[in-house]
């Protein structure tokens, strides 16, 4: 797979107006119209197939939708993705998640990855604080699950370096730096794999309204991290081997934990636990996800 181009906002603004279209989520259409010299369409419209260049601006679900549309309807179109929220990393990923018969299905195909991504720094300040924090939780989930994944192979060292040198050094704020960190975390997890946090999120998300993927990852990140720690020596051994502090990982997970969300979600987790255990992402968790594992999460709730 060729490297994805990382463009500055100024690079993007200098594209020829002829042949460049912007397809944006409705929230950012007015901002895009004011900031860019290109024709902008909203999320309910469809661009004409055969477009030379398309710039997609939006959240992860929207960017995934654009990636799937481009592959099916206009494969010759050059695509640049601009995230309006960090977390999913969809702008950097060869994966697109779609709903199929009520289940989230991840479609992985090099043809899905945009040729370029760009950061629009001004969007960072426009993200509502709660969305920004959940996006931070999604980003940390990708990096930590990639680091611990039994499929990580050589990617484990890459994930460890990213955690030590970048992610754990950057306090959570609404800095545009989180757009790049999110994209890098997503690329790392695409190489290594994820685990139980994503197994839970993918299982519960279709059943719930008001709890999107990033919010679910944020609610379960620390409980799952502690579940993995108490299952044995594996997490500690991997952390020691790569010079990552378990306490630092736990603090990062705890920064997004919301006890009220956790209590609200626990009954659904209990009801769907058998499905969580069977979820393919749970089955590649760094520790065995046991059928009686729900007991840990019940006890966790008592302390939450």
């Amino acid at each position, binding site marked *: 797979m060729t490297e994805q181009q990382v463009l500055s906002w100024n690079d993007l603004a200098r594209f020829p107006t002829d042949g460049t279209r912007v397809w944006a989520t409705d929230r950012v259409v007015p901002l895009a119209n004011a900031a860019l010299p290109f024709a902008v369409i909203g999320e309910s419209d469809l661009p004409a197939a055969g477009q030379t260049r398309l710039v997609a601006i939006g959240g992860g679900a929207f960017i995934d939708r654009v990636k799937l549309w481009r592959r099916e309807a206009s494969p010759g179109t050059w695509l640049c993705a601009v995230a309006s929220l960090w977390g999913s990393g969809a702008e950097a990923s060869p994966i697109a998640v779609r709903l199929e018969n009520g289940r989230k299905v991840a479609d992985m195909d090099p043809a899905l990855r945009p040729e370029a991504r760009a950061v629009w720094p001004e969007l960072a300040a426009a993200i509502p604080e709660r969305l920004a924090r959940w996006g931070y939780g999604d980003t940390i989930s990708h990096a930590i699950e990639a680091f611990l994944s*039994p*499929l990580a192979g050589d990617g484990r060292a890459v994930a460890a370096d990213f955690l030590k040198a970048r992610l754990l050094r950057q306090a959570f704020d609404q800095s545009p730096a989180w757009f790049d960190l999110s994209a890098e975390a997503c690329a790392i997890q695409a190489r290594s794999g994820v685990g139980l946090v994503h197994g839970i999120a993918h299982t519960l998300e279709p059943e719930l309204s008001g709890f999107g993927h990033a919010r679910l990852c944020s609610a379960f990140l620390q409980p799952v991290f502690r579940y993995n720690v108490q*299952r*044995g020596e*594996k997490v500690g051994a991997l952390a020691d081997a790569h010079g990552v502090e378990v306490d630092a990982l736990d603090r990062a997970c705890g920064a997004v934990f919301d006890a009220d969300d956790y209590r609200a979600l626990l009954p659904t987790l209990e009801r769907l636990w058998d499905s969580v*255990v*069977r979820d*393919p992402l749970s*089955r*590649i*968790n*760094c*520790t*065995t996800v*046991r*059928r009686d594992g729900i007991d840990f999460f019940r006890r966790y709730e008592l302390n939450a």
Partner: protein
Amino acid sequence: MSNREKLKQLLGEVFLLSEDEISLDLRKDQIETWDSLGVVSLAVGVQETFGYHFAPEEAVGLNSVRDIISILSKGGIPFDD
């Protein structure tokens, strides 16, 4: 708990089998969930339960529960109880 009992419990957890489906005579082709994800899950579970780390070629070369016992026995984990 004997190592046989530990292995049976582990097989139930990683291959999502009920107690009456678990036997030490099972072969890979009899277990629907012994797929590529099952191999990963089994390797993780064996490391947790017995402290044995399957080499990748060992994990993908397993064709039966007897194969698991054979490798673990050679690795110094007794199954003659």
